[in-house]
């Protein structure tokens, strides 16, 4: 009995770890991490555009540069088939993404273009920054609108 209890505990522990592992998917983790980094940088230019934070040309340019590069990260391995919210837990990606990959790609290209426009003007003052942030937000929203489930 003294031997069996830790054994049982470790079997249970392994089983639990297995269940957790089954719920995570490296591709889903990678794309969610990428979205987190978008938000991390959007927070800077977004807060300035909203008036929550004073405009700072250097900080705005750095965040915009980051967003430019983040949106150049190749997406090829981030969206494997079978990682929609009907197939697995832990994602809000709708199956429609894979039903119309051309549209999904077009929306991503629109995001890349918006990030490029933002990068071009981020250091030119708040009046230049605001519409470019708006355009970037609209590119985010267009895809969330079509391809992301409610929580």
């Amino acid at each position, binding site marked *: 009995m003294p031997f069996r209890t830790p054994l049982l505990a470790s079997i249970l522990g392994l089983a639990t770890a297995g269940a957790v592992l089954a719920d995570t998917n490296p591709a889903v983790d990678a794309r969610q991490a990428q979205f987190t980094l978008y938000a991390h940088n*959007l927070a800077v230019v977004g807060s300035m555009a909203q008036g929550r934070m004073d405009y700072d040309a250097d900080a705005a340019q750095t965040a915009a540069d980051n967003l430019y590069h983040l949106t150049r990260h190749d997406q090829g391995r981030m969206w494997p088939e079978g990682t929609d919210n009907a197939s697995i837990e832990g994602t809000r990606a709708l199956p429609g993404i894979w039903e119309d990959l051309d549209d999904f790609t077009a929306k991503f290209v629109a995001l890349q273009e918006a990030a490029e426009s933002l990068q071009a003007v981020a250091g030119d003052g708040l009046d230049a920054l605001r519409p470019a942030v708006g355009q970037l937000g609209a590119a985010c929203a267009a895809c969330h609108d079509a391809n992301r489930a409610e929580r």
Partner: protein
Amino acid sequence: MQRVAVFVFGLALLAGAGFWWLTRPQGLDDADIATLMALDADPERGAGVFWAGGCAGCHSAPGAEDDDAPVLSGGQRFETEFGVFIAPNISPHPDHGIGTWGRADFANAMMRGISPQGAHYYPAFPYTAYALADLQEIADLQAFIATLPPSDAVAPEHELAFPFTFRRGIGLWKARYLGEDWVLQGDLSPEVERGRHLVEALAHCAECHTPRDSFGGLDRAAWMEGAPNPSGDGRIPGITPGALGWSRQDIALYLESGFTPEFDVAGGSMAAVVRAMARLTPADRDAIAAYLLALE
């Protein structure tokens, strides 16, 4: 035996007449119609009502772009547990839209859920909210819609199963759910009162953010506490102070920009709502925030 049959027949007739009377479409009363007809309508003010009401969110074509003068061709599908509702064409087209409607027709549709032919509309069209609007707003809104581009699109019929195909029954639903007073009561500041008007009468936020009972009426005891997404995926979040935890500035800026305080970006049905809310005045977005923070 014959007397029993006559009695049962008579009872059935009475029950039928009672049902018919209870479910009859009831328009605005004569005094309201008289007031309405005497108003001067202003399309510019109507634009404010239009964006606060979010009309374009449901009545523009599926996937339509953000536009100052949206084409209200209809055609968007709304999946519910009662079936699929399809938004109609409310553009000013004379044959396929609402271009020939009189002001009373428009007001009875908006505030009583009755078509110009006297049929009940399904409450997917949130007339229970618009019933709290001002007659002036209704007249102004119609004047604004008349300035939008006409569309000859014909939206498909709703896809409903019996008994929901029986429109007359909506009369019973209305007897229970139409004509409610404001949810937020008490001594309110002018700003919160304005916010209440925007949220409860025009923007009809509760239609998605408040759960429904088994008859599809709003559960006013759980006002804005969040609800299952009618199309089945996930939940519509609660927007009470406790559920949201956002500041007044967070709420107002979200409605303007679509950015949450964490700089996530609104999606789903809320993306269209934000596009409309962005066209309100900053004071109105602040008023909505003040109202939401006054809940509970």
